[in-house]
């Protein structure tokens, strides 16, 4: 399966209009098999506690080893300033970029329980808005930061 994922990503379109999003396996192991080799960026989603941050760091190192142009953390389920600080301190210590901070939002697990897309179930949720801001970084339509 790893070779297939890698080849599918390689074969996906390269114009600014084309976006390919790979939801990877939960274990970091797949990264050492090169599943994300042809990605332009890898985002490691982390929660603001040590074990999660540490997994994110390991994944980031593997992705940097693959030579991905951009590797960053996305801090998810951040409840307060203290948690935000924990993430930014960890990132600074390990020289990692934080691409986005997504606040803890009860409406996300609520959408999951309803077996619905967050965008349909809670389009005005704070977390959805934060993901929208993150999306703009990868938009080829000129509203992002030009990385697309």
């Amino acid at each position, binding site marked *: *399966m790893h*070779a*297939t*994922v*890698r*080849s*599918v*990503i*390689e*074969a*996906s*379109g390269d114009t*600014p*209009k*084309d*976006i*390919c*999003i*790979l*939801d*990877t*396996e*939960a274990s*970091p192991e797949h*990264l050492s098999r090169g*599943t*994300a080799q*042809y*990605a332009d*960026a*890898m*985002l*490691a*989603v*982390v*929660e603001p506690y040590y*074990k*999660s941050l540490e*997994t994110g760091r390991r*994944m980031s190192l593997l*992705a940097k080893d693959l030579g*991905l142009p951009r590797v960053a953390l*996305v801090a*998810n389920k951040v409840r307060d300033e203290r948690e935000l600080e924990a993430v930014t301190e960890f990132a600074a210590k390990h020289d990692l970029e934080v691409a986005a901070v997504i606040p803890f939002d009860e409406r996300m697990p609520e*959408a*999951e329980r309803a077996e*619905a*897309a*967050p*965008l*349909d179930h809670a389009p005005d949720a704070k977390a*959805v808005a934060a*993901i929208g801001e*993150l*999306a703009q970084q*990868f*938009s080829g*339509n000129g*509203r992002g930061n030009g*990385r697309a």
Partner: protein
Amino acid sequence: MKLAIAGKGGSGKTSISGTLARILARDGHNVIAIDGDSNPNLALTLGIPAERMSDLPTLPRDLLRRTPEGVQLNQTLEEVCDSHSLRGPDGVTLLVMAHPQHAGTG
């Protein structure tokens, strides 16, 4: 832009992947969302009902061929998507690598 989203189970990576895909598709992009998890549930976060997943044929095992340049798909990605993907809300194309029926519970 080819974007890999990683993270521990429960980190919310799939909700973020699905929501990013939908928003970028609304923004006018051609979006292919690939569920590479051995326990696939990207469909739900994209807004594709579970019932529709049973229509999705398993990816063939002989999808790859070896060439002097390395391993490649033996058909175009478009052909793979025509026969093995689902079209979700906002026009997102979903490709599932491990078939739900062959994986753990959703």
